[in-house]
């Protein structure tokens, strides 16, 4: 079960994995995620689905190595099996013919924005995909994304490729250049927040895919609760997509960092285990 068919390190610290999961591949839609457990002692971590092949029963995940769970996941090789994989979870992204849509991906979100850009393009939208990274060597999947975008824009902080500068400037330039009907953002919480704050004055609906801590992923535990327009919502079932202008970012960032101390302890423990 859940055999790893293909594994790549797409850029330093970010990995893509093709996993055999026929039931998930059959059902999944853009914006949904799976819960993964690397081994019997592992955490249950949510990972967005970045691509799938329904006929072959495969799904692709893209993830960044940050804590012990993703580090353990990254150490697995082709042919290895995951202890558990459940999904597809969460409500799918709302896909409709909005007109011109700006899709923004950063970090692992470059991978997970792919099925969203693709679905929006298939729906008949004009899709502008903007990929953001610190430097050119941290960009990936440009070829794939080019095929599903009317325009693919690259943005690097150091200007080694594409536009140079900060994502806020790039978003503003695009919005001022042409009429954008909707913005979709995937990536780290900071990117989601910054992008939402940039579009707010323009009144363009901005949908972000939130990534709080989860356990079961089915609405049972409530750890992923987020405050949306003053109301508590569960990201695992009510989301993960929410209107970025309604998200209480402060609470989200605070709740995401609840276990920083334990994450470090866990990493130290893992390093010891790796040595002995």
């Amino acid at each position, binding site marked *: 079960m859940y055999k790893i068919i293909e594994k790549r390190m797409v850029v330093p610290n970010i990995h893509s994995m093709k996993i055999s999961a026929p*039931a*998930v591949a059959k*059902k999944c839609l853009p914006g949904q995620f799976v819960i993964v*457990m690397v081994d019997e*002692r*592992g*955490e*249950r971590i949510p990972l967005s689905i970045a691509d799938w092949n329904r006929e072959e029963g495969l799904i692709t995940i893209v993830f960044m190595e940050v804590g*012990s*769970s993703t580090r*353990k996941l990254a150490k697995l090789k082709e042919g290895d099996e995951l*202890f*558990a*994989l*459940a*999904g*597809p*979870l969460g409500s799918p992204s709302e896909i409709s013919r909005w007109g011109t849509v700006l899709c923004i991906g950063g970090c692992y979100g470059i991978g997970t924005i792919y099925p969203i850009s693709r679905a929006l393009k298939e729906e008949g939208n004009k899709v502008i995909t903007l990929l953001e990274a610190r430097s050119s060597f941290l960009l990936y999947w440009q070829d794939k994304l080019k095929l599903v975008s009317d325009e693919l824009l690259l943005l690097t902080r150091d200007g080694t490729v594409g536009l140079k500068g900060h994502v806020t400037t790039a978003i503003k330039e695009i919005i001022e250049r042409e009429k954008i009907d909707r913005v979709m953002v995937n990536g780290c919480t900071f990117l989601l927040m910054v992008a939402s704050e940039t579009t707010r004055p323009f009144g363009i609906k901005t949908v972000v895919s939130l990534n709080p801590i989860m*356990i*079961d992923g*089915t*609405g*049972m*535990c*409530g*750890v992923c*609760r987020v*405050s949306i327009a003053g109301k*508590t919502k569960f990201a695992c*079932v009510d989301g993960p997509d929410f209107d970025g202008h309604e998200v209480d970012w402060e*609470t989200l960032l*605070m*709740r995401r960092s*609840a*276990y920083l101390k*334990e*994450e470090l*302890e*866990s990493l*130290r*423990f*893992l390093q010891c285990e790796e040595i002995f």
Partner: protein
Amino acid sequence: MEEKNRAELDRIKLAAQEDWRKELKKKIPTKERMKIERIKMPEREPEERNQDFFEVNLGLSEEQAMEEARRCLDCPNPQCVLGCPVLIDIPSFIKLIEIGKFREAAKKIKETNSLPAVCGRVCPQELQCEAQCTVFKATGVSVAIGNLERFASDWERKSGLVEIPSIPPPTGKKVAVIGAGPAGLTLAGEMVKMGHQVTIFEALHYPGGVLVYGIPEFRLPKAIVYEEVDYLKRMGVEIITNFIVGKTATIDDLRKDGYDAFFIGSGAGLPMFMEVEGENLNGVYSANEYLTRINLMRGYDFPRYDTPVPRAKRVAVIGGGNVAMDCVRSAKRLGADWACIIYRRSKKEMPARIEEIKHAEEEGIEFIFLTAPVRLIGDEKGWVKEIECIKMELGEPDSSGRRRPIPVKGSEFRISVDLVVNAIGQRPNPLIPLTTQGLEIGKWGEIKVDWKTMATSLPGVYAGGDIVRGGATVILAMGDARVAARAMNDYLMNQS
């Protein structure tokens, strides 16, 4: 009473007329039997057990069990059976224990209960079988039916002599069970014994439902749950984990895959929050999250297991039920210097089992009654540091029959804490109701059923346990499953 229940009761009464039973009964006069004192369940010392997650109760020895069994009068009209949601032939198994036939006693229980080692530990017997016991009515101290049930099933398991009942030839009918908790496991056991092909779909990575994510190890060791699950597998039940019905596939999808009947036992997996200020602060948990981290994910063994659970110094648990007791006793075991229960009514109204309250008190848990949280106050880093509470007084009885708590104006006070657990209840999990067209749902999100058959509004679809009851008990869920199994069997066998 239903026809079939009456038939079962008649059989139980008839069994009491067997010669060996009549003779055994004569051996000790009723008066003498009533004089025997109830054997106290051996348990670990509070100061020792509140440091770890090993089981609190140790179980009766063979001699103790046989002595306790002598207290049972083998009544001609046993009322205890009527108190049992799954109608266990209680007098028969107790008398088998009295004569030392422990294995037979265990088999007798298993005729109607697929999870005896679980029920012997977590059933509220004092409200069910033991409340109906004649000895209880006469002396105020019932026969320890629950402890004896636990003894018989533990004895069988330890002996390694667990026997798989013979399964009738396949009927060719396929049953899909949603959720591997107490309701689903019971239904699966019943249906497989009738010759149907049964598959359980479980959302989590281990089967057991609340028995593995909710009830802590010190009350119900997980190894026992897995052995009972293994027993079902050996009978031929297939269990598919990591499969979320409603997401991975819907009931309609499964119908197309050839399943003929369905049982929804997806539980009360939707935590309720108090809806007070500060509830999203760090350090504030739903009971479901706190217990899942500890039990299912084995957070108490962090960092060997990857899921962390905070080891707080001052812990407050809101609520007065068994779940609240499980949370507060777990907090103590995780190293809390001080752990308390905050409950808005008085001790008398607490829904938790007497045994759980007693154990908690012995372990050093403080109880703050007639008090309700008003808001949670955080520090500059977003962690909870205080609860502001208000004192309550009891007014007129409400719809539940318990006196309604009323806030006392101006009685606010603060308690300093670094962890708060919300154990005020849960509601039915909405996943199946939301994804199954045509399923009739009640106002709390529960699936509506015909209580005589546990049939839902969809043909061939049955439901039971917390998904129809909200938050109830393991044994009521199992009782529902037994009712549903009979009706489902009739439904399947009447299908062309």
